[in-house]
Structure formats: structure tokens, C-alpha cells
């Protein structure tokens, strides 16, 4: 057994330094308090004959000075802690996104390449990783002590957590928020691999379909293709007769008579809404549009789409979004080959 904890992320040494400072200050204060207490208790014990002399008259000065000293130290600690904390919320743009879903009592992990794991998370060293986490039931907490990180995983919303592991190895993963009977068994491992090892792991891990491919199956399963077209090309009759980006490339149009906006090339592009505003179609916009289609209606379309809130599980939603994203990528590729 050991009383030390590996520091395996870029964040860990910084937090350790802060903890060390806190520990140092605490020891100093404890030494002062216990030291004075022992000293006075022995020196001024009732039987002691030492001359007490007169009492200090102006206690006010003491009060003000130790209050001021305490305040100053506290403020410094506060700033230090807040500065480090804020950085935990600023993931680098190039972070690799890994989806984590907590449920009683396991961690389900999905990699962008479609690899799925349970209670284990493989990540490459020296690359920023952003975990996008949610829960299917109660509140959990994704905690990796070696990274000095944790974040509650809350049902009904996404929480993100980013880190840059810098030391290959295997580290404990715990659920830190009490989540029911087998809370203590909701544990796992985070495996940090060096770059080459990670690529090897990716290649040997049974390459289940990519998220996007699974999303495509769901796109048909949930009937999205009925209106948005088999390949997300939209149904004809939209503004300008045919959806942008689909002309010349889209396969046979769907026979649907319902008008729905095209999805090819949607991701990342600006979308004009019926209320005159324009939004960028990001993850959140797509998610909202699936769950609450009436909220942001694309200009010159009627809202005929039913809400899918409560019908699509969180994992499936992630896949659908991945699929719609991939449609955007296809268009970009097609544009390049065409040009």
C-alpha cells in the first residue's frame, strides 16, 4: 500500500501544488494554535507561581490584526483555487470527444470511432479528451483521483469534463455520488495509453459500427427518413425547389409529400428561422430540434414534426447527431472532389 497518489494528468500537479499550500498553511496554523495552547496551559497552570503581571488593555489591536491577516490569506487561496477551477471548464478546441453514460450501476463509454466499453475508458496520453456525460437514471459522479478530477453526471442534461492524461497507466475510476444499492461497485478503470498503443487498441477493438453508421440505422428506424429523405436530403418542395447542397448529388428523392428541411450539409451551417433570426446548427440545435421541433422552425417550413422527447434514448440521440454530422462532412468531401 502506499500513501501517495499518482499524478497522471496535466491538471494533477497544479492541484497538488494548491493542496500542498493549503496543507502547509494548515500545519502552520495548527502549530501556532497547539503550540500556544500547550505553552499557556503549562505556563499558566493554576499551581504555577509565575508572575502574571497586568492584563493587556488594548485587545482591539490584536483582534483587528489577526482578522486582517486571516482575510488576506483566505483571499489569496480563493483566487488561486478559482483560477484553476475555471480552467476545468475551458476544454481545448481539438479535444477528442468521448461519450459517457452512467446508469445504475455501470459506466457505458462510446468512442467517436464506435468502440464501446463498459466500466473502462481507454484514452491516449498527451491529447486533450473531453468527456460528454449524462445519466440514464439517478445522479452519478465520474471521478478519477489520479487526474484530481470529478464531475456529477446528472440525468436530463450533459455535463462535460476535460483532461489531458500525461502518464500511461491504469487508474481507478469511481462513482462518487451515492447512486443506490451497488454504488460501491460502480467502479472501473481509466487506461491511459501512449499514442502508438492507443492506435493499436483502436485497431484491435472490435470495430462496432461507427456512431454515425448506427445513427443512420436509427434515422430510418424512427421514421426520420420519411420526411427528411432517405439520406437526409430533405423532401422536394422546399424553398428553391430542391434543397441546397443536394442538387446533382442526392440520390433519388423520397416520395414523401411532407415538406421537411434537408439535413445534408446542415451541421455547422447557419439556419434562418421563421422568426427571422439565424442560428448555427450545432449539437445543441439538432438535439433541440429533435426533442422540441416547434421551438425553432426553419424559415418557410411548417412545423409538422412531432416531438421525440421521451422516445429516443440518450445513447440513440448521440448516434443520430453523429449521423447528421457525417452528412455535413459528406457534402464537404463532395464539394472538394467536384472542384
Amino acid at each position, binding site marked *: 500500500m502506499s500513501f501517495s497518489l499518482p499524478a497522471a494528468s496535466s491538471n494533477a500537479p497544479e492541484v497538488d501544488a494548491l493542496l500542498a499550500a493549503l496543507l502547509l498553511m494548515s500545519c502552520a496554523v495548527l502549530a501556532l494554535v497547539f503550540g500556544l495552547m500547550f505553552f499557556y496551559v503549562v505556563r499558566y497552570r493554576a499551581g504555577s507561581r509565575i508572575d502574571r503581571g497586568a492584563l493587556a488593555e488594548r485587545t482591539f489591536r490584536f483582534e483587528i490584526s489577526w482578522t486582517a491577516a486571516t482575510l488576506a490569506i483566505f483571499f489569496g487561496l480563493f483566487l488561486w483555487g478559482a483560477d484553476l477551477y475555471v480552467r476545468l471548464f475551458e476544454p481545448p478546441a481539438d479535444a477528442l470527444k468521448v461519450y459517457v453514460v452512467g446508469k445504475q450501476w455501470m459506466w457505458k463509454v462510446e468512442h467517436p470511432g464506435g468502440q464501446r466499453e463498459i466500466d473502462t475508458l481507454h484514452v491516449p496520453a498527451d491529447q486533450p479528451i473531453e468527456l460528454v456525460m449524462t445519466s440514464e437514471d439517478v445522479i452519478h459522479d465520474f471521478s478519477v483521483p489520479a487526474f484530481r478530477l470529478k464531475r456529477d453526471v446528472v440525468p436530463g442534461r450533459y455535463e462535460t469534463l476535460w483532461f489531458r492524461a500525461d502518464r500511461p497507466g491504469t487508474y481507478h475510476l469511481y462513482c462518487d455520488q451515492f447512486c443506490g444499492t451497488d454504488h460501491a461497485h460502480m467502479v472501473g478503470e481509466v487506461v491511459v495509453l501512449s499514442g502508438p498503443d492507443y492506435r493499436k487498441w483502436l485497431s484491435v477493438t472490435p470495430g462496432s459500427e461507427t456512431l454515425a453508421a448506427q445513427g443512420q440505422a436509427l434515422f430510418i428506424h424512427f421514421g426520420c427518413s420519411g420526411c427528411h429523405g432517405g439520406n437526409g436530403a430533405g423532401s422536394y418542395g422546399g424553398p428553391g425547389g430542391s434543397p441546397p447542397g443536394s442538387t446533382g448529388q442526392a440520390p433519388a428523392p423520397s416520395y414523401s409529400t411532407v415538406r421537411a428541411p434537408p439535413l445534408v450539409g446542415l451541421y455547422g451551417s447557419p439556419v434562418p428561422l421563421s422568426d427571422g433570426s439565424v442560428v448555427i446548427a450545432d449539437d445543441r440545435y439538432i*438535439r433541440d430540434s429533435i426533442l422540441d421541433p416547434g421551438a425553432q422552425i426553419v424559415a418557410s417550413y411548417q412545423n409538422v414534426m412531432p416531438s421525440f422527447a421521451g422516445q429516443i434514448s440518450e445513447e440513440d440521440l448521440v448516434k443520430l447527431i453523429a449521423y447528421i454530422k457525417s452528412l455535413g462532412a459528406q457534402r464537404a468531401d463532395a464539394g472538394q472532389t467536384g472542384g
Partner: protein
Amino acid sequence: MMQTLRPLLLVWLALLALLGVELGGAFLRLGHLFGGLLLLPAGAMVALVGLFFMRLRHASGLSRGFALAAMFWLVVLLGLGSMDPMTRTLHPVAMTTYP
């Protein structure tokens, strides 16, 4: 006797007038933000009832202190309590229905 009853009646009339303001406001299209303004007449009504019907004007200093403390802590509860939800960046997720 009329001297004591008259202010009470006047307060009652003022309360009804403020109620009228609220009722009218309910049918104006004020929007999400300005809808909250309709709480102002309610606040005035609460103050009137407290000061006149509950005689806060003539209550002991201690009683008035208690009333003020209640208001202060109510503001703390509402202010600090809504600070987090109002400033949160929320990414909602569709929940499947419960088992």
C-alpha cells in the same frame, strides 16, 4: 370610531385597485421578461396588508425586526438560489420515461 375604520376602508379600496391593475396586466402581451413586472402590484398589496391590516406600523420594534428579517432572508433565498440556474449553460437531454 370612523377615524379608525376609514383608513382600513381606504386600504381595502387601494387593494382592489391594485388587483385591477394585475388583472388588466394579465391580458396585455408583456412577454416573458416583463411579465415579472406584474409582481410589483402584488408586492404593494402585501405591503399594504402588512402595514395596515397587520398593524406593522404600530407593532413593537422587535416585531418589525422579525418582519424585516423575513424579507431579507427571503431575498437571500430567492437571489442566491436563482443565481446558479440563471447563469448556467444547460445542455438538456431527452429523458426516457421512468421504469
